[in-house]
């Protein structure tokens, strides 16, 4: 069994920055990441796709961090999953290439990033419907673009970024914007962030201008979106319109990936601005568990610059707690990343307000499949909630939502919102689903093979 000072889960901006900083402070660092290369989703396959003119300009800012991470001396395990974490004992169960391994860490940082908010609309299980983020990953990892009429439906910064990237690659999509909040209403919530966040705002405005210049057509105020077709999507329809469509890309923003943080029982709080759960954490990512910290989008959506700053802060906090950094040095070192994070988050209140997900996305019509694994409709969930399922854990027992291979990663937000709607509860009154290990599938054989070594090391 290997022992580490700090185990970092996730090699996105937060995880990479944390590893780099922790190594600078002399800690022995493990970084576990599911993907084949570092970068997380925002800088997915960045080293490979940087020369691609469609995505290169947006991915370049990640290259220095990736290079620093590659050279920092952390024990970096690519294509490796964490399938169980014991926060009390600091024991991590990992799986890679068909075998499991157990390591221990004095401190653990969850930098698990974000996932796309599920966008359950009627017909969204049809082949040809996918997440906007998914299409962007195809572009980054394989340079691949959709063939035929492509529709990008939803809202948020990624919609504009992807529209431009696809247009640069010669596939200008039709954008159906679902935004319901006016710019004026969002401005009212922006506070002073517009000034401090003017850099990001300028980037956004220039993306929108580039989209127009490259021939991206935009229809605004789209409601009642649905995908139609026999065995694949053939048409996208909305109130008052429809368009032929071979590929429908959906996006309603991103939410923290809290699968592991919920499974290990960290305290979570409902983030009303972003309509999602996030782990409760202090300025340095310390959570309700004495050993575990969180950083990056997995602790609340803030974008990659805020994530990198949070990763550094969590690493500095780990170094202080482990006695590698004096209080004085700590106080000195945190100033820069604290300021960087403040600047990176300045525009967030405006963006959160502007791109608040509409109710129809959170609580879809009855005929919509909410749980894609077990194929359970929103209507069935509403009926079970009326029968007496007061939360997603009991509803899972009734209808199997969350028992499929995705373990509720996709359906949990929808299930909770539907229960809240039916039972007249506020979102935070419906407890989140409690996932269990294995967080990602391992085979019976892999587990069985680990039996002897585990029994020897068991307390």
């Amino acid at each position, binding site marked *: 069994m290997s022992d580490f000072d700090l185990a970092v889960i996730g090699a996105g901006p937060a995880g990479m920055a944390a590893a780099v900083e922790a190594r600078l402070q002399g800690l022995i660092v493990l970084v576990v990441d599911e993907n084949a290369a570092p970068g997380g989703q925002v800088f997915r396959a960045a080293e490979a796709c940087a020369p691609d003119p469609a995505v290169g300009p947006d991915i370049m800012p990640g290259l220095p961090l990736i290079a620093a991470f590659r050279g920092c001396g952390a024990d970096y395990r690519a294509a490796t999953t964490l399938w169980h974490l014991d926060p009390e004992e600091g024991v991590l169960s990992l799986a890679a290439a068909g075998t499991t391994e157990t390591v221990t860490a004095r401190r653990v940082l969850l930098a698990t990033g974000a996932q796309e908010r599920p966008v359950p609309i009627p017909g969204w299980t049809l082949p040809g419907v996918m997440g906007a983020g998914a299409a962007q990953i195809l572009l980054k990892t394989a340079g691949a673009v959709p063939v035929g009429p492509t529709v990008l439906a939803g809202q948020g910064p990624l919609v504009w970024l992807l529209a431009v990237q696809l247009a640069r690659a010669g596939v200008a999509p039709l954008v159906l914007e679902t935004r319901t909040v006016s710019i004026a209403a969002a401005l009212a919530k922006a506070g002073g962030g517009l000034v401090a966040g003017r850099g990001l705002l300028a980037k956004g405005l220039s993306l929108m201008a580039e989209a127009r210049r490259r021939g991206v057509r935009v229809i605004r105020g789209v409601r009642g979106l649905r995908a139609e077709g026999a065995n694949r999507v053939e048409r996208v329809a909305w109130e008052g319109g429809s368009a032929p469509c071979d590929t429908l890309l959906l996006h309603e923003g991103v939410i923290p990936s809290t699968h592991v943080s919920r499974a290990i029982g960290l305290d979570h709080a409902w983030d009303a601005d972003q309509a999602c759960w996030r782990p409760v954490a202090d300025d340095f990512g310390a959570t309700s568990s004495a050993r575990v910290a969180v950083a990056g989008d997995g602790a609340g959506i803030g974008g990659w610059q805020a994530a990198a700053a949070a990763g550094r802060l969590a690493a500095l906090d780990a170094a202080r707690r482990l006695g590698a950094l004096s209080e004085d040095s700590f106080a000195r070192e945190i100033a820069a990343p604290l300021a960087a994070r403040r600047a990176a988050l300045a525009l967030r209140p405006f963006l959160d307000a502007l791109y608040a997900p509409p109710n129809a996305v959170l609580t879809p019509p009855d005929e919509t499949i909410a749980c894609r694994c077990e194929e359970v409709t929103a209507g069935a969930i509403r009926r079970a909630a009326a*029968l007496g399922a007061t939360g997603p854990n009991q509803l899972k*027992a009734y209808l199997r939502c969350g028992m499929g291979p995705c373990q509720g990663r996709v359906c949990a937000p929808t299930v909770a919102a539907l229960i809240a709607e039916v039972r007249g509860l506020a979102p935070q009154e419906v407890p989140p689903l409690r996932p269990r290990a294995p967080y990602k599938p391992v085979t019976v054989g892999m587990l069985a093979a680990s039996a002897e070594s585990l029994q020897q090391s068991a307390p």
Partner: protein
Amino acid sequence: MAPSHAGMQTRGSDVIVVGGGLVGAAIAHGLRGEGLDTVLLDEGDIAFRASRGNFGLVWVQSKGFGAPWYQRWTRGSAGEWPGLAADLAARTGIDTALQQPGGVHLCLSEQEFEDRGRRMAQMQVEAGNFGLEYRMIRRDELAEMLPGLGPSVVGASWSPYDGHASPLALLQALHRAFTEAGGAYVPNAKVTGGTAAPKDFRVETAAGTFAAPRIVLAAGLGNADLAPVFGLNTPVRPQRGQVLVTERARTVLPMPCTTIRQTGEGTIMLGDSMEEVGFDTRQSPPVMAQIAQRAALSFPWIAELNIVRAWSALRVMAPDGLPIYDQSERFPGAFTANCHSGVTLAGAHARLLAPMIARGALDPALDPFSAKRFDVPRAA
């Protein structure tokens, strides 16, 4: 009309059942079937809920070693199950996936096989005229019954009474049948206090006050604290069990084994540990690995399957592992039911026990299940 108490609205009924898990829901369903105005009080989304962790066997062959009355009660329940399943399907359209093709207990060594054989023989003796049909089957014959049997399996005990069902479909079907028949299912109603007088019971919950001349405590581990208020004694403790579930596979296994069964959906459930760790529902990779190891020895092809879910849950255990059924002597009308076999005993709870409670007296056949068996004479 419901009497009001201290200015607070009280919901009156014929009977209150405390506990909306498999035990309480089966009893409540049966009581409603007897025509009683029944209120079923349940906790909320976060609770220990042994029912959600049940392995799903309708299992007879191992039950009641040294306690033939438990063997009879269990076999009686297995016999009631087809009627219960048909009743629930007719009322709710929910298929509880009941199958009773017989079942086997696999033995992975000669020692296990011999011990098992002795145990089954002893139980047959104890069964007396009631009888107990079983066979000890050697590996070659067993391999004809169970595809892909591992070389480590030396044999098994088999009985025709065994089967399995979906615990979660059963729970939903009971809740649905109960409410559709006019029963009142009240979630988020954890009992916080209560008062007892003969045939006059009152409980306080987050969802209000409830009163009835009869009450059934079926609150699982919660019974331990609740029972003394009603003149009952239910010394139950938690025992942790962990279960692994594989991805769905096409049907392979024609019958359930004690710790391996293929569900109606095609998933294969692997169980289950017995751990004395108190109220600790954490999972433990070393125990999960042991479960996986035994499953892979039993059926090597299972090793290739992905585990997509696993959990740990707490069994409701009496000191001797047997159920506790009682009516309070001090406060007649107060009953309690406690067991760790909410699926196996659902047939008995809905169709045998509920009518007894409705009549106001437990059958003498249930006398051995009274908690009086734990009363030891005090030393002078």
